[in-house]
């Protein structure tokens, strides 16, 4: 597709009013090549030549040499940079030199593992000797029993995922003794995804793997690959508990790419409201499809993906275009078979347009697309480039358009486009010592091998204490200086790496009309649902999200269709849905409260505030819902919801302005409470710039009940905390200065959704982000005064000590 012509067409369109704020050309770039110190073995050189690869890129050679010398590494290069060869080359070479050499590959998803296997088998097939010597196989939940036996016995390369490693390979490690005793390499692909919850779990799983490898006498070299983040070395080191070499100068060639920043038009005379980025994306997608291109739109929420698909199809039907049938949505919650079909159809070109959540971000090969549309900032620079990388993988011109939403960060980024093209400031946060996560994995570790003091210490400095707690409650027992698992069955079975809570709700649809609704039973032990006849599972939802998505009378969207939730069974973890064509969808209304339980750290070095970090208890509850009409987005009604509150024990930071500051603001006509509300809204959107989380991962309240004086409390939305607000605590100066920039630079008069706005500051993953306009806004001037006051130098040094608790 001719992207320059496409942009010209857009500019000439009657609806165009200067939305293209910035277009940066990333010129085509040739590759930098190198040769390894010792040449590759002949069979390997042959398959590369057969695949059209005459020489290797510089970063591939660097990785090869590092692996050869036994140095753990992480490769940080973009999509289509030949990252796979960075780990496959040293591994294939090792297998040729030693027929007993083995490697374990870990991918974040099953689909990615399957895709990689396909690529490997194609490569190996090009040379008879290689194919005979090296056997590869995928080991995951779908692998049939006979194949599992073959893989255990014969495979040199085992491709799997952390979940399978955790639940199956490690607990039954004697059956894998052959692999584990001859393991030479462990590959960790997409390692930047192992942050937050998943990161905490995976860090523990990798420590268990390390223990088991040592037990069988293997010391594998770890080869990791990451997308671009600020701290790939640190992240990988924390996951592996060892130092790694960072290889990050990307030497691969790139085709020409245009990166455009798009700001939807303001509605009304002031700049308070803007047209929806989603609606603009629908427009661009339809144009791209009609121009003969393939287009992928990334959305921030699942519901938004459904809406984009729906509106795009509506528009194409209105134009009587056959392309209406070639647009789909793609998101988590769809069944695996459905997702595989969409990936294949994209890759083959049968599907022309897809609206997807970041579920499609990871490296599954879907071919090269012409246009990628990012509907609102994806939340991290790394994700931005990964999503952008979906267009133009195999050279040729391509286009990425980032459509800004009415978010403070989105608008901030439009004013600072250099942010994307300069070095990324975002740090991936992983906390391998979250006590909830650690407690569960210590049990699993003890089940696998008895833990002595050294082994326990490898899980972190707090592991010994956590083990103590487990001992007191009878989960672990100490015999002769070692800890053994003394609980029930294999503890790994009850741990899901993707969640903090191990419970999933099923949304169940009645398929036979006359069936009476029977209670759905949960299978003891596995937690799976036993469905009676005439019912089928529509989708799954985790327990924390369930109360705000599938409350009774909610409207649930799936594949663009509406389902009415008739009943929610909290005990059985089932929601009963019925297919109805609805004219509206629903948004939950939540109430929450926070209580500080323990202070861990305090900072006295802030000039005009006291800052603390510690533990809190959070309660929240869905109390009602709004009915929103499709298309117009008007509020057409309310409903009551009666479900119990959720409780969350987590970590938080709280900021208490100095007494002097609390006195200054009223004198200037500003209320401290409102100022802190504004600051809360800003902080929740600014923290991701610092801690590489999502705005949805943290939340906050302004509260005076806890400390007797107004304080801002920011907390991690996960049991035990994940280190996000802790990062904010350590980088408070950066955080506050970004907040001040945000509020100063916003062109609005008195506050707007793009700066201090959004009392509904945590749009749920299932919500429509365009709905958060039209709420009462905190006082912008007050917030600005507060931020300037906090940044100012104290009159006397004693001020800080005199304030707060």
């Amino acid at each position, binding site marked *: 597709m001719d992207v320059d012509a496409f942009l010209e067409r857009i500019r000439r369109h009657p609806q165009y009013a200067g939305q293209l704020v910035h277009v940066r050309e990333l010129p085509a770039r040739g590759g930098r090549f190198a040769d390894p110190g010792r040449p590759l073995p002949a069979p390997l050189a042959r398959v590369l030549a057969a695949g059209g690869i005459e020489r290797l890129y510089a970063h591939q050679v660097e990785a090869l040499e590092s692996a050869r010398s036994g140095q753990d590494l992480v490769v940080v290069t973009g999509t289509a940079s030949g990252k796979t060869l960075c780990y496959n080359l040293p591994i294939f070479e090792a297998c040729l030199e030693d027929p007993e050499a083995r490697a374990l590959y870990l991918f974040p998803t099953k689909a990615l593992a399957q895709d990689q296997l396909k690529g490997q088998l194609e490569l190996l097939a090009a040379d008879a000797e290689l194919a005979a010597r090296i056997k590869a196989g995928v080991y995951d939940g779908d692998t049939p029993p006979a194949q599992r*036996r073959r893989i*255990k*016995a*014969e495979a040199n390369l085992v491709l799997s995922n952390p979940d399978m490693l955790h639940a199956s390979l490690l*607990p*039954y*490690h*004697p*059956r894998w*003794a*052959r692999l584990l*005793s001859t393991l030479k390499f462990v590959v960790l692909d997409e390692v930047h995804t192992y942050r937050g919850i998943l990161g905490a779990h995976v860090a523990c799983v990798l420590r268990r793997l390390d223990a088991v490898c040592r037990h*069988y006498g293997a010391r594998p070299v770890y080869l990791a690959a990451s997308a671009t983040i600020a701290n790939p070395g640190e992240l990988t080191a924390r996951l592996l508990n060892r130092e790694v070499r960072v290889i990050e100068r990307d030497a691969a060639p790139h085709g020409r790419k245009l990166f455009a920043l798009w700001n939807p038009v303001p509605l009304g005379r002031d700049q308070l409201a803007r047209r929806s980025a989603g609606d603009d994306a629908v427009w661009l997608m339809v144009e791209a499809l009609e121009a003969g291109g393939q287009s992928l739109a990334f959305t921030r929420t699942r519901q938004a993906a459904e809406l984009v698909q729906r509106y795009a199809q509506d528009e194409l039907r209105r134009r009587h275009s056959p392309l209406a049938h070639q647009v789909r949505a793609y998101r988590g919650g769809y069944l695996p078979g459905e997702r595989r079909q969409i990936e294949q159809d994209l890759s083959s070109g049968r599907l022309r347009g897809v609206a997807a959540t970041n579920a499609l971000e990871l490296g599954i090969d879907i071919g090269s697309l012409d246009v990628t549309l990012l509907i609102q900032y994806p939340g991290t620079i790394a994700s931005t480039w990964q999503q952008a990388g979906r267009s133009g993988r195999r050279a040729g011109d391509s286009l990425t358009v980032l459509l800004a939403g009415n978010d403070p960060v989105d608008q901030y980024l439009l004013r600072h486009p250099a942010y994307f093209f300069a070095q990324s400031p975002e740090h991936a946060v992983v906390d391998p010592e979250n006590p909830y996560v650690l407690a569960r994995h210590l049990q699993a570790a003890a*089940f696998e*091998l*008895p833990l002595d003091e050294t082994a326990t210490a490898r899980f972190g400095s707090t592991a010994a204490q956590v083990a103590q707690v487990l001992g007191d409650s*009878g989960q672990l*027992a100490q*015999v*002769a200086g*070692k800890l*053994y698992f*003394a*609980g*029930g*069955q*294999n503890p790994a079975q009850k741990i899901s790496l993707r969640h903090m809570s191990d419970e999933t709700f099923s949304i169940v649809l009645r398929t036979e009309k006359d069936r009476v609704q029977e209670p759905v039973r949960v299978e003891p032990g596995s937690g799976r649902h036993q469905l009676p006849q005439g019912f089928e599972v529509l989708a799954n939802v985790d327990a924390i999200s369930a109360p705000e998505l599938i409350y009774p009378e909610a409207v649930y969207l799936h594949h663009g269709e509406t389902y009415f939730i008739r009943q929610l069974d909290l005990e059985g973890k089932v929601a009963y849905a019925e297919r109805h064509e609805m004219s509206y969808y629903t948004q939950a209304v939540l109430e929450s409260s926070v209580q500080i339980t323990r202070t861990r750290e305090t900072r006295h070095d802030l000039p005009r505030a006291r800052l603390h970090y510690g533990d809190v208890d959070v309660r929240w509850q869905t109390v009602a819902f709004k009915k929103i009409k499709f298309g117009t987005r008007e509020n057409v009604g309310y409903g009551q919801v009666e479900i119990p509150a959720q409780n969350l024990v987590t970590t938080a930071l709280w900021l208490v302005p100095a007494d002097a500051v609390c006195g200054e603001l009223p004198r200037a006509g500003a209320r401290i409470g409102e100022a802190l509300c504004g600051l809360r809204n800003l902080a929740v959107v600014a923290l991701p710039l610092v801690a590489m989380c999502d705005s949805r991962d943290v939340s906050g309240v302004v509260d005076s009940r806890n400390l007797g004086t107004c304080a801002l409390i920011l907390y991690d939305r996960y049991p035990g905390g994940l280190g996000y607000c802790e990062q904010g605590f350590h980088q408070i100066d950066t955080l506050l200065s970004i907040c001040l920039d945000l509020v100063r630079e916003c062109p609005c008069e008195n506050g707007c959704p793009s700066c201090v706005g959004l009392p509904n500051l945590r749009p749920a993953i299932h919500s429509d982000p365009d709905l958060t306009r039209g709420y009462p806004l905190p006082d912008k001037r007050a917030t600005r005064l507060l931020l300037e006051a906090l940044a100012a130098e104290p009159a006397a040094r004693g001020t800080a000590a005199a304030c707060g608790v």
Partner: protein
Amino acid sequence: MLSEQVRARLALLRRTLRPVRMPAALPRDAGPASDPYGTAACPPDASGLPEGREVVRASGGHWLIEQTLESLWPAAAASLARGGPRLRQAAGAADDLPDELRELGRAFAHQVIFLDLETCGLSGAMIFLAGLLHDSPRGLLLTQLLARNYAEEQPLLESLWEYVAQRDVLVTFNGKSFDWPLIVDRSTLHRLIAVPDHRHRAAGAPPRDDAWHCDLLHHARRRWRGQLPNCRLQTLERYICGRHRGDDIPGSEIPAAYHDFVRTGQCPAMHAILRHNALDLVTLLQLALCIVP
């Protein structure tokens, strides 16, 4: 006449029924002499445990309880007198008896060992009790190797290997699917045997090609198919052996009882488990005596 297709299928079936070879054990390090009838008598403060003695090895110790079959099953002598010769006779019979049963008869009783395990769960769990029935100068003996805590599994397994490796025929119930693979797994975990290759033979050690594993579950299914509600051991015990257990600890409660035992040292549950294990072995013996039609 059998068609070519059916003939081919039967040939395949016979190949897959070939008995599992038992890997020979490679004892780790230099242990003391391999006589399992250990060293010191049980120390005075081992109260709480059933009567027995401690076995001490380089890797640690475990408990050993031994009694003659006579003391557990008084009718043993009579039963053996009836069943023993018939079983031995089967060795010479030329009909379509499976090889395993023929070998069982040939080796009975001196070269046969009966085995039943009690564990902390299904797959991946530890073995805490190995019950054995075997011949000795004193007649048939019931020997139970008990791990008094989690650290004693390794010495227990070392002793177990010594018993098993000395006999030609191993008899179990469902042992081919459960007991034996678990013994191999746990022994691999404790590095008592070299990493097994996919033929489950210890690499580098001379395999005992002449050893057999006779799993009575399979033979019982074949022998009494359709005549019984199911082929569970206690069902066979009731219908074939004519015995009924009163007051036996349910299998599902055994792991929890063991954990309690380790934590508190209290014995009542342990007595029940040992009794359960012993009764299972007795039934196994009786079934072996009746298995040949």
